[in-house]
C-alpha cells in the first residue's frame, strides 16, 4: 500500500473544485481507488478528465462522423490521421487549436501551437512537409487586435521558419465576435512510408520507457484545465500557464526521432502535449493494455525541487515519451546523444495495469489506468439547435448606386484584403517542394511529394458567419468549401481534419451550434466520401459570457496524381474567355456584400446542394486533367466579382465581366451561391466546355473576357487593375503600421 495514503488526506472539497472536478466525478475517483487520492493522483484525474483531454462534451457527437474510407490508414484516436496516397506513401495530418494560450501570450501561444501539431505528426513517423494556419482575430479597431496579430504571426513564423517546414497557406478573419477570444488553429501535414507508421500503444511488459527532448520545467502546469474554462477579466493572470517554445530543440527532435524510426528500436511513441507526462504515459499504457512505472527522479528537470505533481502536470514543450525494444537501449541513447538531446530511461511497462510513480524512493501515485480512460465523463449535454436565420429576399436588399466604390470597399475590407503582410513572414519554400502557396492567392496550397511527380493539395476553410446563421448549412459549407478548393487545383480530395472552436458547451444554444455543425459537416463528408481522420475540439471560447461565432475550421487534403495536370488561379491569358460553372441565384443572405456595404449581418446562408457540388467539382477536375483550363478559382466570399479580381491579381491581367443574366446586378456580382467555379479557357475550349457541361446537367455560361489592365463589370464597375491591387494590398500594412 502506498505510504502516503496512510496519512490523513489533505484533499478538501475546495481542492477538488479547484481541479475542475465535480462532486460526482470525485465520487467515482473515491470508488475506483477505494480510498482518497493524494494530491498527485487528484491532479492526474483532473487533467485526464478535463474537457481538453477527455472530450467529455463532444465525444458522443464526434462518434457520428464518417471516419473510414478506402484511403484511410488511421482515423481519429491516434496523434494524427493517416491516409494512403499510393506508391507506399502515406500522408499524416492534423489541425489543432491553441486559442487560449495565444490570447494570453500571442507569440509563445502561437509558436507552441505550431510545435505541438508538428509533434503530433512526426510522432507517427512522418517528416512534416507543410504547415497551414487558420486565424481569427477581433475587429481591427479593438485595442488588443493589432498586438495579437503581430505576436501570433511572429510566433507562427518564428517556430515554423526555424524548424524548416514551409508554411504554405491559411486564412485570416477579423470579427468583433473574437474580441475576447482569438482563434489560432495550426495544421501540419507530414509524409511517411505507409509501412512505417508509428503508434502509441505500449505493448509488452518490462520494456524500457524513454524520455527524450527538453527538460521538464514548471511551465504550462494546468494548461489543459485552462483550455477547459471560460475567460474572465483576470485571464491575463494565467500567463504563467502558457508554455514557452524552443523550435531549435523541436528540429533536433524531428531529426533524432526520424533517425531512430529508421531502425526497429521503437515499440511505441507519444509526444507530451496537453497534460504532459500524465496523458502521454496513460494513453500509451491504456492503448497497450499495460501498466507503467516511472521513477520521477530520472526525469530531466529544468528547475530545482520540482514536486511529482509539477512534473506530471507540466506542459513543457518539445518532449517525447517512447517505449524502446529491450536490447535497443544503447542505440536509442546514441541517436539522441548525437543530436544533443536530453534522454533518460525513466521507467518500464508492467503487467499491473496501474500507473505507479516513484519519487525520492517513495511511491507517490498508484492508480489503476483503466478508469482514467474508461470512466472519463461522457456527457450528454442538453442542446437546442438554433433555427436558421430567415431567408432574405434579394429585392429587399439595397442595391448600391456606386459599384466602383463597392468593389473597392469589398476588395480592401479586412477579411478580403491581401494578407501578404502575414505570409511574407513565413518561409513558404524551404524543402523546395512548394509548388503553390499563399503567394498566388490560390484556393489550395500544392506541395510536391519529394522526389516524385505527385503532390498533395492542402486547404483550410470555414465561413463562421454562415455557421452562426445556420449551424447545419454552415457545417455543410465548410466541408464543401475545402472539397471545392482542392478540386480547383486539380486534386482528388481524400480526407479532412477539423478543429471545432465553440463557446461554452454548458449552454444549450452553444451545444446546439456544435451538434448542428457536426451534423452538417458529416452530411457533406458522406456525400463526398471524404472522411474525418483527425481533429480537435476547443470549447469555452467565451469571455464574460460572450461566445465566439461558431468556427468549425476544416483542413482538407487531396492528391494531385501527376503534376503535369494541375491548375491555379494564376494562368489566365489575354483573350481567354471566362466561364462560370454552377447556378447563380444571387444569394446575398449572410454575404460579404451585406456586411461590408450595408453593415447588415443577417439572413440565412447560401445552402449547399451536395449533389450539384459533387457534379460540378468532378467536372472541373476532369477539365483540369484534360488541360482545358488556364486558370480556375472557386467563388466564395464576395462572389463572382471578387473571384474575378483575385484571378486578375494573380495573373496580373485585366478582366471584364458581362452583365447580369436573370439576377439583379448586386446578386450577380456579389451573391455567394455555392458550388461555383470561375474558369479561364482559350477560345477553342469555350464550346466544348459549355456543351459537355450541359450534357452533364451543369449550368455553364460565358461571363466575360480576360485582357487589358482594367477590371470591369458591365453596368457596374470599371476600375484599373493597378489601382484596385493597391487597395487590396494596402489595408493590412496600413493597419499594422
Amino acid at each position, binding site marked *: 500500500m502506498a505510504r502516503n495514503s496512510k496519512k490523513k488526506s489533505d484533499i478538501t472539497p475546495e481542492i477538488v473544485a479547484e481541479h475542475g472536478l465535480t462532486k460526482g466525478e470525485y465520487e467515482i475517483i473515491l470508488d475506483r481507488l477505494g480510498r482518497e487520492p493524494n494530491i498527485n493522483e487528484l491532479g492526474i484525474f483532473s487533467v485526464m478528465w478535463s474537457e481538453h483531454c477527455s472530450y467529455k462534451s463532444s465525444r458522443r457527437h464526434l462518434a457520428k462522423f464518417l471516419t473510414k474510407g478506402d484511403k484511410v490508414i488511421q482515423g481519429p484516436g491516434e496523434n494524427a490521421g493517416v491516409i494512403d496516397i499510393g506508391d507506399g506513401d502515406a500522408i499524416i495530418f492534423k489541425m489543432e487549436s491553441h486559442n487560449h494560450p495565444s490570447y494570453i501570450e500571442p507569440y509563445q501561444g502561437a509558436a507552441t501551437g505550431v510545435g505541438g501539431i508538428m509533434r503530433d505528426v512526426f510522432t507517427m513517423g512522418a517528416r512534416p512537409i507543410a504547415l497551414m494556419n487558420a486565424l481569427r482575430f477581433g475587429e481591427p479597431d479593438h485595442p488588443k487586435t493589432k498586438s495579437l496579430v503581430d505576436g501570433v504571426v511572429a510566433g507562427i513564423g*518564428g517556430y515554423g521558419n526555424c524548424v524548416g517546414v514551409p508554411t504554405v497557406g491559411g486564412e485570416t478573419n477579423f470579427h468583433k465576435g473574437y474580441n475576447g477570444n482569438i482563434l489560432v488553429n495550426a495544421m501540419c501535414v507530414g509524409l511517411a512510408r505507409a509501412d512505417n507508421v508509428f503508434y502509441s500503444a505500449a505493448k509488452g511488459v518490462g520494456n524500457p520507457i524513454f524520455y527524450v527532448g527538453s527538460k521538464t520545467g514548471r511551465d504550462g502546469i494546468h494548461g489543459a484545465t485552462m483550455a477547459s474554462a471560460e475567460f474572465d477579466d483576470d485571464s491575463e493572470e494565467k500567463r504563467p500557464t502558457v508554455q514557452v517554445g524552443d523550435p*531549435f530543440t523541436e528540429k533536433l527532435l524531428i531529426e533524432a526521432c526520424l533517425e531512430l524510426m529508421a531502425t526497429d528500436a521503437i515499440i511505441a511513441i507519444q509526444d507530451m502535449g496537453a497534460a504532459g507526462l500524465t496523458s502521454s504515459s496513460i494513453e500509451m499504457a491504456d492503448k497497450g493494455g499495460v501498466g507503467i512505472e516511472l521513477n520521477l527522479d530520472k526525469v530531466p528537470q529544468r528547475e530545482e525541487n520540482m514536486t511529482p505533481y509539477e512534473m506530471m502536470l507540466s506542459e513543457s514543450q518539445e518532449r517525447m515519451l517512447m517505449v524502446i525494444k529491450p536490447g535497443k537501449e544503447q542505440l536509442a541513447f546514441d541517436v539522441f546523444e548525437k543530436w544533443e538531446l536530453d534522454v533518460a530511461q525513466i521507467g518500464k511497462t508492467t503487467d499491473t495495469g496501474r500507473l505507479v510513480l516513484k519519487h525520492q524512493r517513495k511511491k507517490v501515485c498508484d492508480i489503476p489506468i483503466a478508469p482514467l480512460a474508461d470512466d472519463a465523463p461522457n456527457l450528454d449535454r442538453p442542446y437546442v439547435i438554433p433555427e436558421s436565420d430567415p431567408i432574405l429576399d434579394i429585392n429587399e436588399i439595397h442595391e448600391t448606386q456606386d459599384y466602383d466604390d463597392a468593389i473597392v470597399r469589398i476588395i480592401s475590407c479586412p477579411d478580403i484584403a491581401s494578407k501578404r503582410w502575414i505570409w511574407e513572414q513565413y518561409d513558404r519554400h*524551404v524543402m523546395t517542394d*512548394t509548388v503553390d502557396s499563399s503567394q498566388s492567392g490560390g484556393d489550395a496550397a500544392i506541395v510536391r511529394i519529394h522526389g516524385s511527380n505527385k503532390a498533395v493539395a492542402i486547404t483550410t476553410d470555414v465561413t463562421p458567419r454562415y455557421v452562426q446563421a445556420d449551424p447545419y448549412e454552415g457545417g455543410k459549407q465548410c466541408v464543401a468549401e475545402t472539397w471545392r478548393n482542392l478540386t480547383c487545383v486539380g486534386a482528388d480530395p481524400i480526407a479532412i481534419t477539423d478543429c471545432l472552436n465553440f463557446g461554452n458547451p454548458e449552454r444549450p444554444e452553444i451545444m446546439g451550434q456544435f451538434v448542428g455543425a457536426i451534423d452538417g459537416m458529416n452530411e457533406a463528408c458522406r456525400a463526398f466520401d471524404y472522411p474525418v481522420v483527425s481533429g480537435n475540439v476547443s470549447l469555452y471560447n467565451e469571455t464574460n459570457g460572450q461566445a465566439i461565432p461558431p468556427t468549425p475550421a476544416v483542413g482538407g487534403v487531396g492528391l494531385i496524381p501527376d503534376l503535369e495536370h494541375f491548375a491555379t488561379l494564376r494562368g489566365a491569358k489575354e483573350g481567354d474567355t471566362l466561364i462560370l460553372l454552377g447556378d447563380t441565384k444571387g444569394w446575398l443572405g449572410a454575404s460579404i456584400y451585406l456586411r461590408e456595404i450595408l453593415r447588415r449581418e443577417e439572413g440565412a446562408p447560401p445552402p449547399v446542394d451536395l449533389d450539384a457540388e459533387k457534379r460540378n467539382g468532378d467536372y472541373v477536375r476532369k477539365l483540369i486533367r484534360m488541360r482545358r483550363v488556364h486558370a480556375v478559382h472557386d467563388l466564395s466570399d464576395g462572389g463572382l466579382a471578387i473571384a474575378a479580381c483575385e484571378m486578375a491579381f494573380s495573373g496580373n491581367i485585366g478582366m471584364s465581366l458581362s452583365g447580369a443574366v436573370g439576377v439583379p446586378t448586386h446578386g450577380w456580382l456579389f451573391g455567394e451561391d455555392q458550388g461555383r467555379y470561375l474558369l479561364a479557357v482559350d477560345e477553342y475550349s469555350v464550346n466544348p466546355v459549355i456543351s459537355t457541361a450541359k450534357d452533364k446537367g451543369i449550368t455553364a455560361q460565358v461571363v466575360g473576357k480576360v485582357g487589358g489592365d482594367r477590371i470591369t463589370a458591365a453596368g457596374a464597375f470599371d476600375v484599373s487593375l493597378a489601382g484596385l491591387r493597391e487597395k487590396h494590398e494596402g489595408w493590412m500594412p496600413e493597419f499594422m503600421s
Partner: protein
Amino acid sequence: MKTAVIVFPASNCDRDAAVALEKITGHKAEMVWHRETSLPAGIDFVVIPGGFSYGDYLRSGAMAARSPIVKDIVAKAKLGLPVAGFCNGFQILTETGLLPGALMRNKNLKFVCRPEKLKITNGNTRYTSKYGNKIDVTFPVAHHDGNYFADDETLNKLEKSGRVVFRYVDNPNGSARDIAGICNEAGNVFGMMPHPERAIDPLHGGTDGLDLFKSIIESI
C-alpha cells in the same frame, strides 16, 4: 566531382542544397555532420546551407562557426577550396572571418520571405560566369537576419575589387549598399542571403539558380 553539404544542428536547407548539387553534378553530395573534424577526402566544393543552426541563439551563425568541422573548412578555403554559404551559411561564413562584414536583423525587424530580383554586379566571378549577358536573376529570400553590414572602408574595398557579386533591386532588409552576395579576395568563397537552391526547377517559379551552381562547378 565531389561536393559536400555541412549539416549543423538545425540546418534546414541541407537537403535542398544536396538536391541542387546532385542535379548539377549528377552525383550525390556528401552530408558532413558538424562534429567531424575534417572534410572527406577529395571534396571539390562545399556548401554551407541555410537554416537556423543552433536556433540562431546568441547570434545567427555564431555558434556554428565554432563547430569542429569549421576549422578544416577555413583552412582548406584559404588554400583555394570553393566554399559557398547561402542564408544561414552566409551568416556562418562571416562569423568564421572567411567573408567580411556581418548580417544584422532585418531593418523592419521582421522575417521576410519573397522572390527577390537581384542585379548581377559582377558576372566574371567563379559563381556567375555562366550568366553571360543576363543582368538580373530572381531568387527567393527567407531570413530574419539578412541586413548586411560592414564599415565604409570594407564596403569601398569590396566594391572596388569587384567582390560585390549580387545587389538587391528592391532591398528587403536594409543591407548596406543593397548588397546581397559577396566573395572573398581569391574568389573561391562566396556568400549570399538569397537562396539560389530554391530556383532550380520550373515548379519553383524559376530556374535562375542553376547557372550559379553550374558556374562554380565548371570552374573546378
